[in-house]
């Protein structure tokens, strides 16, 4: 194998590694590091003749970038209407002051919302409301903040649009929204139920009834813009409906999301400067930079070479299950300590390359999606939603609510491994289900 590695491959691998070191060590902001990496890869690739500007532009997955931008704008239109506040008020009422029920209901709400909307935004909105609810009920918000972050990560893993890695996988492998939900829905449901049960057990001391009349939030002023809420929800419903049938209509999920966005913009006529200002351009440029970096490595031929080696293992149908499980666990462990996006972006062309070697790559897509989706719960740095929960616990000013990295890991590591064990069991027992895309 060694004699097949060319200088171009070595150089592209070195550039990829350098960019990832800059990203993971946070010496530079991750977007700056990704853009710098992309520029260097293109420049060096052009000079050495293995990569061009046109190839770099084609390497960027426009479906992923545009869908994320459209969904960010839809969330920005929904947020000021008070929809999330209204949901939080009613969740508190349904819980009737029971800390355990409150944890289940809040987790369920955050998970369901995260299946369609960005889970980071969901946690940003719900975390302060959760602290406020806990303040009223005189209970510690720490278990709730952790549960919301972890279960939003798990909920997001169920759908094509719930998590950026899923979107990247779905876009690269041409997996429909329905297919994603059908394959990932069941394992995610099993993991979700298991995780909630585990959290109720791990936090059993904090989740005891306080024995006072529960105080609740009032919904009188929760809805700030009823007309805007109805119109945004209608647009979102159109988007979700189109997600379910986008494959039949031969449209990309990004196109579906832009239909809903344009509907909302026509009906609401918002300040466009303000709406475009809500798009997290830094995240989108980070993704674009990563696509360009990995595109360079792919153009050098290195990923094909790695894929050929992996194909030897995965070509044997007996070994395919094992390869999938190995991929799931490696993806999860790496995602617990570093950003899961660079890993996903790198793995996608490697897995795609296996197809030409006659390997059924469908099980590997699902294994990758499960691994990166569940791994983020291990540490507080594993997912952006976790960092928001930690930050909110600090801002609450309640010493008992503070989530330190150690406190996170005491719950996060058991949750991650328990989730992985459950997902692996489902993957193993229903492996036939995962052999199609």
């Amino acid at each position: 194998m060694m004699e097949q590695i060319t200088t171009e491959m070595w150089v592209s691998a070195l550039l990829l590694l350098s960019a990832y070191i800059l990203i993971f060590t946070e010496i530079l902001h991750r977007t700056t590091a990704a853009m710098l990496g992309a520029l260097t890869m293109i420049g060096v690739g052009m000079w050495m003749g293995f990569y061009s500007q046109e190839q770099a532009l084609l390497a960027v997955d426009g479906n992923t970038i545009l869908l994320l931008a459209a969904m960010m704008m839809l969330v920005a239109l929904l947020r000021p209407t008070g929809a999330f506040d209204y949901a939080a008020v009613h969740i508190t009422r349904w819980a009737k002051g029971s800390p355990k029920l409150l944890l289940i209901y809040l987790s369920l709400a955050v998970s369901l919302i995260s299946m369609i909307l960005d889970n980071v935004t969901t946690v940003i909105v719900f975390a302060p409301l959760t602290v406020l609810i806990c303040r009223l009920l005189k209970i510690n918000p720490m278990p709730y903040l952790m549960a919301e972050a972890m279960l939003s990560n798990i909920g997001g893993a169920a759908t094509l649009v719930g998590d950026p890695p899923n979107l990247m996988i779905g876009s690269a492998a041409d997996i429909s929204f329905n297919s994603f939900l059908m394959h990932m829905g069941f394992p995610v449901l099993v993991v979700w139920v298991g995780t909630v049960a585990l959290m109720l057990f791990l936090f059993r001391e904090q989740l005891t009834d306080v024995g006072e009349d529960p105080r609740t939030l009032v919904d009188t002023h929760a809805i700030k813009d009823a007309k805007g809420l109805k119109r945004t929800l209608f647009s979102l419903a159109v988007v979700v409906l189109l997600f379910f049938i986008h494959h039949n209509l031969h449209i990309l999920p990004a196109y579906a999301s832009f239909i809903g966005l344009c509907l909302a913009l026509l009906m609401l006529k918002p300040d466009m400067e303000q709406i475009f200002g809500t798009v997290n351009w830094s995240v989108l440029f980070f993704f674009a930079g990563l696509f360009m970096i990995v595109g360079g490595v792919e153009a050098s031929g290195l990923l094909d070479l790695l894929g050929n080696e992996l194909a030897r293992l995965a070509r044997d149908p007996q070994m395919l299950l094992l390869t999938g499980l190995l991929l799931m666990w490696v993806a999860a462990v790496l995602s617990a300590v570093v950003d899961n996006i660079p890993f996903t972006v790198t793995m996608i062309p490697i897995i795609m390359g296996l197809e030409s070697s006659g390997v059924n790559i469908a099980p590997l897509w699902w294994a990758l999606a499960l691994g990166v989706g569940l791994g983020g719960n291990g540490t507080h740095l594993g997912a952006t939603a976790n960092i928001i929960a930690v930050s909110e616990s600090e801002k609450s000013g309640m010493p008992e609510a503070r989530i330190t990295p150690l406190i996170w890991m005491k719950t996060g590591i058991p949750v991650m491994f328990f989730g992985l064990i459950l997902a692996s069991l489902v993957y193993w027992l229903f492996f036939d289900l995962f052999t199609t895309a």
Partner: protein
Amino acid sequence: MKIKHISIPTKVARPGMSVGEVMSECVSKGVPGIPYVDQSGLISGRFSVRHMFRVCCIPDDIIQGAHLLGDDIDHLDFPHIKAEDLMARSVDDFIYPDTVRLSANFQAIKALAIMEQHNTEYLFVTEGEDYQGVVTRMSVAGAIVTRECCID
């Protein structure tokens, strides 16, 4: 109208003073904040009543969900003991490092514009390194009401 005519002279906060002492000065002079002068005698920050309330009493979650709170939130209010405890604390814990200072010869219109620029209700007036007082939006309004604005 020059701001030296409408600034409100106040004492300054110094290291080790209690919140109670400093708050009393703000309340008696009707100003939202006063300068904090460090050990070396220089203005290095400010005591702001708004900032103090933000730090000690109203966390972000309460601000964000204020419209969702009912009337039965006695336990979140100011119990007497909490106020006693707060007044006895050192002012050093509540100093905001940012200060905006204006020369005493500046016009009131410039002071108002700078207040807008910095989203603040007040500015400190200095003559060289010497602190003269606080100019607030209300002190400008007061000068207009009493026609003091016409004095050159």
